[in-house]
């Protein structure tokens, strides 16, 4: 570090480009010259381009308590931070030393607690912190490593020296934003990157994966997953991006299951043991039995696996204690205590309010401190007495006196500004975050995150509060790195043998996406056909001619029949109720909402084209529901047509863009199961229950309606070239392998999909869904339809055959039941793992 530190007054007025020296100063100069050449319009154009790329890359951060949280795009700036090689080496060594001290601290706290016994850290600080996990005391962790990944926020103090203002040794976030900041710059202004020898960053995910692999207790091809709190978490973007880049499954608590102290991932091929969990879920939520019982995010029993050492959790359970800023403040003392000091990169001079002397210092001039909660990392728990009104300040100081253990105070640091292109090259306060790999041989990767405030004079750099990001250039020189910067590279000559199969939750979502899509499609088509029939036959048939068919269809789509009763206004047309009515839990709109919700949960695994098609379907219904007169028949008719078109688009997008892999097969399975079921039920309701003569001569109109509802009237005509008869219609609908929605065709498709996805399944063939589907296909294919249309013996001659007297009804009922059972079997074997035999 430069020996001639500027005076504090001087630092206040300087920005990073002025504090930089040597190579850094030179590059800053070039950047400033280059960007200043552009007039303000050109600069704005470039900045807009950066911002657009952020949107295209989907660099989002979900803001809590914000309405449209999912779509917040971080502000981006083109002007990078530059760290010269000397500064980088100094900072790297500082953070490496620091991560070592933290690791030593956890090793001690979760074992013999020497630091507490000797009083280096007041024991109250640890014992009263909710981050101290009593459950983890005495548990060994692989390689004695607690902190596998860490990050540190740095800033310059009043004398221009770098200090650590925040330690992240539990759940570490932000690395993705650092990586994307480079990706955006590379595309938006590649000419800038040509100005300097900048270390490349794109290898980070591979490094992280290789690093994690090193903690798998010697397992050759360890199975690693990223455990996330789910898609509503503010860092979901980062979790899904990292998992995809590392090529490992992104899982939630419910995707894992613990059995006899071993943790497994539920996959479509059965449950598969997991060796390393890279978790982004806090300790308190990770095991609802060992920790918070109200948590639904975790894995019940995970602690038993940790206890037996069958799984490595990174970072280790209990590291959440590192969020305690008072402990962070004591790190220099701990460094000496563990013989690792003195720290070359000190902590900010943080004051502990529970210490009466330190508190007195804060109370004497409260305006010069920034006060934070001792361990809550929420950026809303920050107080600036200097900015408070007198009354508010005295109220705050009263609370601080009453609960001093809750607060720590820090001097307000300069957060030295960086020139900012999107603000006409004016300075904006900025912070720096460095990422470290902990372990036996800790190291850094030449990647950092620079965040800046978007408003002049603001120090709000947090992404959650609207701060922006920019690239950080770590410059190369010819000197060898002081510490190895790379993990042991792993090269495999062949694809992994122990590759994890598709996770059951994802398969389940795709399965239900298929089912909801088909259900919505079928219901919409039925409505459209019936409305047309009603119009075509107006005058010839009385309006209530169609009532039984409406009712039959409602029943076939599991609607309560009251949805078809005329409402108070005398509206007879049930379209609105079946399509949109908010109180109808089986409406098309609800189906599409469920389709949307299921897709959202697996958004990172489906092609964006499929997601937008799903989104469009959902939007069509939402817009219709919000329109002025949602019951208007013309609008409803338009809506139905738009929905059917949008469904075709979805099918097209899926067929064209989805890999035809296991995921695809579950999407197909869902569609085929739903189709087979609805075809069976509709046929049964129309022909048996309400057909006027459920005999060979069922009314032409009913048969015609049925063919049109199932969109197979042309198929029928080309096959029979005659008026429809019930046995022929049924033969077509059930048994024709060429008709895509015949029950037999659906079953054959299901059979093919199951054969593919069960390829490596361990289940006993005796009770597998494959066997059931084969039996069902046989049943349908070889059914003697003639016998089904022969009235039961009881209906003697002279008596007209009662509809229910035909064997067709019970036969179709049974087929429907067995199709439902098949659906349960598929779930049990591939999705929920409830089949007893596969778990034993």
């Amino acid at each position, binding site marked *: 570090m430069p020996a001639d530190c500027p005076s504090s007054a001087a630092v206040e007025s300087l920005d990073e480009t002025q504090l930089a020296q040597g190579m850094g100063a030179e590059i800053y100069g070039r950047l400033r010259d280059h960007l200043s050449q552009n007039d303000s319009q050109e600069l704005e154009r470039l900045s807009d381009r950066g911002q657009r790329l952020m949107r295209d890359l989907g660099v989002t951060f979900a803001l809590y308590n914000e309405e449209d949280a999912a779509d917040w795009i971080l502000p981006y700036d083109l002007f990078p931070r530059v760290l010269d090689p000397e500064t980088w080496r100094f900072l790297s060594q500082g953070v490496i030393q620091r991560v070592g001290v933290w690791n030593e601290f956890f090793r001690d706290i979760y074992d013999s607690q020497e630091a507490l016994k000797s009083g280096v850290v007041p024991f109250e600080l640890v014992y009263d912190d909710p981050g101290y996990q009593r459950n983890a005391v005495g548990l060994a962790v692989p390689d004695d490593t607690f902190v596998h990944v860490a990050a540190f926020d740095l800033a310059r103090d009043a004398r221009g020296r770098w200090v650590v203002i925040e330690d992240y040794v539990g759940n570490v976030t932000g690395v993705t934003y650092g990586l994307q900041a480079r990706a955006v710059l590379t595309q938006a202004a590649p000419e800038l990157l040509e100005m300097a020898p900048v270390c490349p960053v794109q290898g980070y995910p591979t490094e992280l994966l290789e690093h994690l692999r090193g903690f798998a207790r010697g397992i050759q091809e360890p199975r690693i997953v990223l455990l996330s709190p789910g898609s509503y978490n503010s860092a979901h973007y980062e979790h899904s991006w990292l998992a995809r880049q590392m090529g490992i499954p992104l899982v939630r608590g419910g995707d894992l299951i613990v059995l006899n*102290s071993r943790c497994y991932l539920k996959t479509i091929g059965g449950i598969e043991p997991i060796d390393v969990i890279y978790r982004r879920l806090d300790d308190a939520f990770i095991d609802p039995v060992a920790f918070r019982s109200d948590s639904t995010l975790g894995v019940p029993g995970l602690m038993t696996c940790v206890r037996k050492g069958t799984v490595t959790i990174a970072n280790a359970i209990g590291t959440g204690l590192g969020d305690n800023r008072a402990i962070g403040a004591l790190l220099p003392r701990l460094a000496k205590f563990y013989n690792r000091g003195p720290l070359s990169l000190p902590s900010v001079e943080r004051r502990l309010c529970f210490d009466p002397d330190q508190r007195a210092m804060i109370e004497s001039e409260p305006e010069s401190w920034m006060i934070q909660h001792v361990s809550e990392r929420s950026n809303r728990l920050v107080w600036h007495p200097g900015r408070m009104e007198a009354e508010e300040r005295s109220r705050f100081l009263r609370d601080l006196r009453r609960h001093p253990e809750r607060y720590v105070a820090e001097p307000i640091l300069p957060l030295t500004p960086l020139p900012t292109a999107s603000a006409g090259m004016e300075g904006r306060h900025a912070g720096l975050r460095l990422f470290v790999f902990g372990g036996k041989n800790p190291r850094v990767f030449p990647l950092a995150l620079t965040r800046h405030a978007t408003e002049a004079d603001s120090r709000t750099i947090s992404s959650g509060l609207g701060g922006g990001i920019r690239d950080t250039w770590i410059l190369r020189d010819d000197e060898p790195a002081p510490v190895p910067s790379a993990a042991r590279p792993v090269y495999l000559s062949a694809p992994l043998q122990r590759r994890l199969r598709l996770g059951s939750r994802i398969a389940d979502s795709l399965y239900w996406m298929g089912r909801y899509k088909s259900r919505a499609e079928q219901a919409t088509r039925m409505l459209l056909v019936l409305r047309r029939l009603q119009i075509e036959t107006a005058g010839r048939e009385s309006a209530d001619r169609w009532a039984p068919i409406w009712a039959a269809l409602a029943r076939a789509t599991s609607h309560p029949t009251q949805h078809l009763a005329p409402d108070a206004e005398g509206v007879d047309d049930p379209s609105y109720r079946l399509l949109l009515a908010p109180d109808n839990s089986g409406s098309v709109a609800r189906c599409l909402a469920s389709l949307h919700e299921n897709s959202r949960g697996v958004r990172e695994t489906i092609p964006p084209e499929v997601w937008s098609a799903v989104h469009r379907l959902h939007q069509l219904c939402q817009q219709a529901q919000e329109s002025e007169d949602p019951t208007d028949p013309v609008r409803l008719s338009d809506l139905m047509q738009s929905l059917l078109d949008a469904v075709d688009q979805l099918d097209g997008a899926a067929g064209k863009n989805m890999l035809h892999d296991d995921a695809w097969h579950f999407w197909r399975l869902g569609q085929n199961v739903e189709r087979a079921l609805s075809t069976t039920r509709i046929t049964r309701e129309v022909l048996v229950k309400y057909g006027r003569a459920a005999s060979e001569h069922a009314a032409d109109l009913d048969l015609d309606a049925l063919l049109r509802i199932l969109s197979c009237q042309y198929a029928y005509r080309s096959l029979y070239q005659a008026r429809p008869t019930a046995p022929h219609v049924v033969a077509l609908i059930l048994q024709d392998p060429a008709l895509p929605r015949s029950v037999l065709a659906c079953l054959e498709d299901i059979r093919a999909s199951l054969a593919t996805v069960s390829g490596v399944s361990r289940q006993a063939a005796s009770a597998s869904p494959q066997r059931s589907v084969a039996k069902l296909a046989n049943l349908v294919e070889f059914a003697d339809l003639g016998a089904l249309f022969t009235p039961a013996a009881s209906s003697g001659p002279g008596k007209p055959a009662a509809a229910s007297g035909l064997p067709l009804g019970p036969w179709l009922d049974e087929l429907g039941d067995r199709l439902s059972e098949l659906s349960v079997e598929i779930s049990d074997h591939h999705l929920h793992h409830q089949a007893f035999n596969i778990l034993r």
Partner: protein
Amino acid sequence: MRFHIEHTTEYDYPDPASESFSELRLRPRDSLRQKVTRHQTLIEPGVLVESHIDYFGNYVETISIPYRHQRLVISSACEVETKPFNDALGAFDLTIAEARQMYQERRRELHDFLRPSQYVRMVDPVREMASDLLPEAAPFAESLLRLNDHLYRTLRYLPGATDSGTTVEQFLLRREGVCQDFAHLMIAICRAAGLPARYVSGYIETDPPLGDDGKPSEALIGAVATHAWIEVFTPTGYWVGLDPTNNMLDGERHVQIGIGRDYADVPPLKGVFKGGLAQRLSVQVRMTREE
């Protein structure tokens, strides 16, 4: 005394349960006062039972039933021998202030038992009771016995009056509750007065065998299932048990399962499962004295 204890818990799930994972704290701990000579836990449906010792030294068993089931039966059977502890509080001739002074040396080890915990909140009424009933100048042993007696007399034991989530404040308002509430309140008062106190979960022999004269000896109050009482740390370095529900020191008829800061640390059963919320639970404890 030697006891044979059978503790059976049965869950019936009208909608099948699955992915069930539970921690059981049912095996009595070994201590100076009691020795477990035999213990066995049986689970139906049959699954592997694993065990470990927790932070507070309690014996914990874990079970995992991933597949669908409509019934879960947990039966724990054990043989325990208890020893008398005569005159546990007799030897102390010091005040509460002096006792507190003597804890200083062990402040770190005792910290958990001096601080508020999930169920033990030091609310204002608790602090008032602490300064009334355990004033600094009062004699240590006598005051504790008086506190035990006071709670026994002013609060009513009423099964079903409260549930496992009842707080100290709620109990003070209702003035009726079960052994768990008595224990939490007494712990809160002790801690508020600076005396380390912890929660004990265990069994109590409520109906003793008939004596030689054909009359039963004194019957004790206890839950149908498990019982709860407290322990206070003495200045000479051991824990002494007080049972406010029965207004007595713990004796040979008390069998400890486990200890903790409060109920949350030693629930006999803690678990999660997937399935419908409706479940029928029946618990049966049989405690028989063996001569």
